[in-house]
């Protein structure tokens, strides 16, 4: 009976062995599968990590681009503001210069019309020509209509008195009297003219369009390097305001003298003593 049972046991053992082998194979497969899955998980994790980094990098890149755009925009605005600043600074300088010129004009015209005393007016005209324009040698002349000559009424650093007469129909001065326009010689500002009929600059003294005389400049101060805008403005101012001031103060002086003469004459007729 044992011998009968033996093949059965062997068979079962064999079957068990087979099952065990299958189990072993199955386990091996499972292990392999597990390893494969672990590898797959690692791969996926790595891929996920890479995706996440790439997204971060993209974010950073976007952020950098945004910051670069912002920087560029700020740079543009800064450059624009800088240009505007420069423009404002230049305008400020121009406005300050214009302000100074206007102040010079204001003071000169204020002084010219501050008195009716003929001698004082002439003194102010000379002061303006010396101090504000920078002329060294010049003469202020009025037209003597009867003689058709220009008679010096004031001068600086030049030997011109009442006997020095300049004809009004000749030369540079004649042209200024005829045309009523200022004359500026082409020669250097440091040129000195010795001829009373040939000034370097000649300005007409005008009441409206009527020329009553001229300012003839023969030399300028050594430190004067050229004519600025304010010089031309001052020449224009002198052409009009100095003429009016000289003319009105002269008329006033004459009328004062005539009034005194008449008053004295009337006093004499009435037999009162004159003052």
């Amino acid at each position, binding site marked *: 009976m044992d011998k009968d049972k033996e093949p059965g046991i062997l068979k079962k053992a064999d079957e068990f062995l087979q099952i065990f082998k299958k189990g072993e194979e199955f386990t091996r497969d499972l292990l392999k599968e597990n390893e494969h899955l672990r590898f797959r998980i690692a791969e996926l994790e790595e891929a996920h990590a890479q995706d996440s980094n790439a997204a971060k990098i993209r974010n950073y890149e976007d952020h950098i681009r945004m910051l670069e755009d912002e920087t560029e925009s700020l740079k543009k605005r800064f450059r624009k503001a800088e240009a505007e600043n420069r423009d404002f600074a230049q305008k400020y300088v121009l406005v300050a210069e214009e302000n100074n010129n206007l102040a*010079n004009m204001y003071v000169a015209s204020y002084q010219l019309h501050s008195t009716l005393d003929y001698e004082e007016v002439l003194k102010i005209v000379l002061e303006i020509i010396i101090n504000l324009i920078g002329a060294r040698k010049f003469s202020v002349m009025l037209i003597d209509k009867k003689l058709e000559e220009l008679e010096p009424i004031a001068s600086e650093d030049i030997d011109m008195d009442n006997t020095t007469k300049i004809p009004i129909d000749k030369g540079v001065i004649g042209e200024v009297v005829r045309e009523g326009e200022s004359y500026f010689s082409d020669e250097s500002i440091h040129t000195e003219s010795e001829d009373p009929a040939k000034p370097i600059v000649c300005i007409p003294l005008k009441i409206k369009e009527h020329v009553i005389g001229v300012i003839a400049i023969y030399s300028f101060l*050594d*430190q004067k390097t050229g004519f600025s805008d304010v010089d031309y403005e001052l020449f224009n101012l002198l052409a009009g305001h100095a003429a009016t001031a000289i003319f009105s103060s002269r008329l006033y002086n004459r009328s004062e003298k005539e009034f005194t003469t008449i008053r004295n004459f009337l006093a004499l007729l009435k037999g009162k003593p004159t003052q």
Partner: protein
Amino acid sequence: MPTILVVEDSPTMRQLISFAMRRIPGSKVIEATDGVDALKKLSSEKADIILADINMPVMDGLKLVSLVRGSSEFRDIPIIIITTEGAEEDRKKAMDIGANAYLPKPIQTQELIKLVTQQLDKG
């Protein structure tokens, strides 16, 4: 508040310089017609800077500079000479006797304001 003494015999120039000086913020301007008048004004009112012409009647600008520099009370007041005398020897003479700056006429107002501000800042 700086007090500026303008010493100039020409009313036109005096007014022009004073006009420019009043544009310095907070400034007070005193005017004198010559050196003697300037000394009188100085004795009654303290000036922070003096702007003086050279050619003036009674007492000229150079005499004024030497008297101010010789005075224990006023010797530290900066003095700017404004004159028609533009030669180098005139400038040297004025600087040698104690002027702080020398500005030949015709003056540029902006330049004068800058010079005065510089001298006041030094003080």
